């Protein structure tokens, strides 16, 4: 690892100031991607600003079925939260299935979303549930947040404060793990929000998480696994690697989506 300057501010303002003053600053919200990348010399930020000491960014609250989860809330906290379990149980299951216990106790929802790994689980939930990403500057609807592999519409120095999930009637997330990394090779979140069916697919797309119009239309007509049998799922734009060809991923999207619907 190249030398770097470590900051641990206790307020958003101090964090913003540290970022503004840095030549090439990086926010650290968990570090499961940033630190290995730095150790491999693939990233060399001049400053690392650790936002986990900022109390305002942490915690879970619920109002009228809508959940607000602070950016630095760990996966384990979400997985074990009675509040989340009551409002949106699928989110608990999703969080409980991220990485391993060590990862879940350090990795955070804000870190995962800001990194937008194409195989991460949370982006599927955020997009399917039509969540709002709340930053220190604005509220970004999920539709406008994800902007391709490892890319979001966050601006320089913009920091995620929390994610607000609207009340949902049902939701279910299933994934097919990569045999090596256990990241999602295909993960499908199926949700009904405000009477509409939304289906978000992670792990499979070259540009990261995406909604699938065909599956949404079919499930809106009939909310049942078999309704997906006749939906066309193209392999255009799907990832292809050692573990799964685009064709295989397209096939798995249907299989996994059906499993999600079955448990919804």
């Amino acid at each position, binding site marked *: 690892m190249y*030398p770097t300057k470590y900051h641990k501010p206790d307020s958003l303002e101090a964090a913003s100031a540290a970022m503004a003053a840095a030549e090439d600053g990086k926010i650290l919200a968990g570090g499961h991607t940033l630190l290995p990348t730095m150790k491999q010399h693939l990233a060399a930020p001049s400053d690392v600003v650790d936002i986990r000491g900022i109390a305002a960014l942490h915690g879970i609250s619920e109002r009228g079925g809508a959940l607000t989860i602070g950016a630095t809330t760990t996966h384990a906290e979400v997985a074990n939260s009675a509040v989340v379990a009551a409002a949106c149980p699928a989110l608990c299951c999703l969080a409980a299935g991220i990485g391993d216990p060590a990862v879940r106790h350090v990795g955070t929802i804000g870190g995962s979303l800001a990194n937008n790994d194409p195989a991460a689980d949370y982006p599927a939930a955020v997009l399917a549930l039509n969540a709002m990403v709340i930053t220190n500057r604005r509220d970004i609807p999920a539709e406008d947040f994800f902007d391709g592999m490892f890319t979001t519409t966050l601006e320089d120095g913009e920091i995620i404060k929390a994610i607000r999930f609207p009340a949902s009637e049902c939701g279910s997330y299933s994934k097919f793990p*990569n*045999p*090596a990394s256990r990241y999602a090779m295909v993960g499908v979140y199926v949700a009904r929000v405000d009477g509409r069916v939304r289906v978000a697919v992670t792990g499979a797309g070259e540009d990261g998480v995406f909604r699938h119009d065909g599956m949404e239309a079919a499930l809106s007509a009939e909310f049942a696994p078999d309704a997906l049998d006749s939906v066309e799922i193209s392999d255009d734009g799907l990832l292809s690697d050692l573990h*799964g060809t685009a064709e295989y991923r397209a096939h798995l999207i249907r299989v996994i989506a059906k499993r999600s619907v079955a448990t919804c």
Partner: protein
Amino acid sequence: MSDGIGARVKRKEDKRFITGKGKYTDDLRQENQAYAAFVRSPHAHAKLLGINASEALAMDGVIAVLEGGELNADGIGNIITGWAITSKDGEPMKCGAWSALAVEKVRYVGDAVAIVVAETQALARIAAEAVEVDYEELPASVSTAGTLEPGAPQVHDNVPGNLIYDWEIGDEASTDANIAAAAHVTEIDLVNNRLSPNAMEPRSAIAIHDEAEDHYTLYTTSQNPHVARLLLSAFYNVAPEHKLRVIAPDVGGGFGSKIYVYPEELSCLWASMKTGRSIKWTSDRSEAFLTDAHGRDNVTNIKMGFDENNRITALKIHNTANLGAYVSLFATVTPTYLHGTNYSGVYDIPAIYGNVKAVHTNTTPVDAYRGAGRPEATYMLERVVETAARELGVDPGELRRINYIKDFPYQTQVILNYDTGDYVATLDMARASADVAGFPARKAEAAARGKLRGLGYASFVEASGIAPSAAVGSLGAGVGLWESAEVRVNPVGTIEILTGSHSHGQSHETTFAQLASDRFGIPIDNVQIVHGDTDKVQFGMGTYGSRSGPVGMSAVMRALDKVEAKVRKIAAHTLEASEDDLVIENGEVKVAGTDKKMAWHEVGLAAYTGHNLPPDMEPGLKEGAFFDPVNFAFPAGTFICEVEVDPETGVTDIVQFVAADDFGTIINPMVVEGQVHGGVTQGIGQAMLEGVVYDEDGQLLTGSYMDYAMPRAADVPSFVVEHGCTPTPNNPLGIKGCGEAGAIGSPPALINAITDAIGSNDLQMPATPLAVWQALQAAKSAVAAE
């Protein structure tokens, strides 16, 4: 005695391992310690035009950047292979030179170009990145089969066509005749996938040069510190043996990959002399994927002929073995004398012929990995037998049974002479445990749930306890393969056993102590095992090839014999009895039928006080032995695996795995079962998960755990382990060696189960969900086309 042979004693070493108090090389710190990092080639094949280290050397805290030219000029020798193979035309093998630091050319991604020494590990790595290397890229030869094709890039100028040797075993004429006359011939093409060893502890070294004494010490992750010292001294010219101490402290797994002296350890020793600093280097996991010797990587065609009674009449094999960019220590023997001699397997086969071509490619060197040659041979044999059973419409267990060798000793057509065995016994044991009779009902029940259930067999025999010296010498080995031991009884009766075997997970501190406990009836807590230090143990050949039991423990037994003989003389003299009337048990030497006895510690005291010893007896109680067996040992068995495949995803669930082994005498069943569990898990890893993949330019695509899949606890079932027992007559314990059997027998059992489940034999390892799904799709298309 509860701690003796056959007792399920808990491991003495676990207290320090489980509490995190083990002392591994990287845990140690020396005076004046600096750190090394290596500049490595990013290209699979390139000319090395120049190195500019000025920027790195200008960094505060960088001590030196040393290159291959200087290493060669200082007389450091090239890295050698330990086994000379002769091609079928009588020509000696040809292999490219391997300098610890590359000169003129680099030949695989990761090839070391320079060593950087700095005050901290982080700085050494940063400085290594700042070293500018001027390369001229060359086309790379990457594919195992393709490297022999005309026009393939040449890896070494002195190895034309990249062919290291073209070796044969058996009788081609009689084999061809039997195949021509066969009632049925089964033929398949197989790939034995390349594996990365992934010991939990990465390689590490601390090199110390004492300038005043002109003496070197090397702490390193080695399975055989004495062999390392021999190589470093006699071949690499670091220092003569009496000026070179090699210590392998706690070592966290090896699986073969820590047999060898690699460029890094050698470079650190040389650099410690050049810089006057103690130098530590610890591999990170990325370096381990690039540079730890890989395993397997064979491409095979196999044909088996049968007569009208389903008896095997012939076996013919063409195998190409990829040895990588340079020929590592045991690389040449693995696909020949550890592979070809296994071709008969457990079967009575009258005619066998095998041809093995070993090749260079621009990839990481390949060497022995758990099983070394025998897993590759067993995989192809057991797949062809299972395939034949399906083609012939015969129960796969029955086809095996009628072809088993049943009379021992048995002389195979491929050198080995099997001493003992009862293959039917372990087959029956496995079939009973696996409830083979109930399989059709389980298959139907699974089908009702939409799952494809399959059952697969593998029977195997392997040559373990690699030895004897004269035999391996006649076949080209550069070393003898005996083992040594010394038993020291202290004046108070406690015992130290010094062994040339090395434990890096094998539980020697417990099982070797059980031998002394068994012999003298003393608790194992009174016995200490000393190993892994060339200053403490005089010599030894180390641990690999399932040899610590059959060879290492046998040496201990011989030393115990000598100690016991002296104990009897001392006690007979003291107790005024005949040696023949003495009984040693429960920590006492007794005169049978009387109340006359000496406590064990009184014997020790008598030996060391020397006040009342028999005339002409020297004081003290310490004996050594070298054991060189007359033959290999031949552990064998049958594994039966049952799987359920999800046809929607291609995911395989192993629902049952039965391993029925015959290891001869078992010292500690718990430890042996652990070895079986670990070996089977590694075999499941090879069969279902693991595979090193390079792209066509020779870039490693599986360079981390993001892409290289290791078996996890959830991937394996709760194993059923059974033991048959036909003790070998060729060592004093009747022990056959258990370290590799699991990894040898499990891949074919699992693949045979999966191919049975999916109804298609067109499947190569690793049988990932993708591969299984694709095989299912291909089988569906084939059916549709018909």
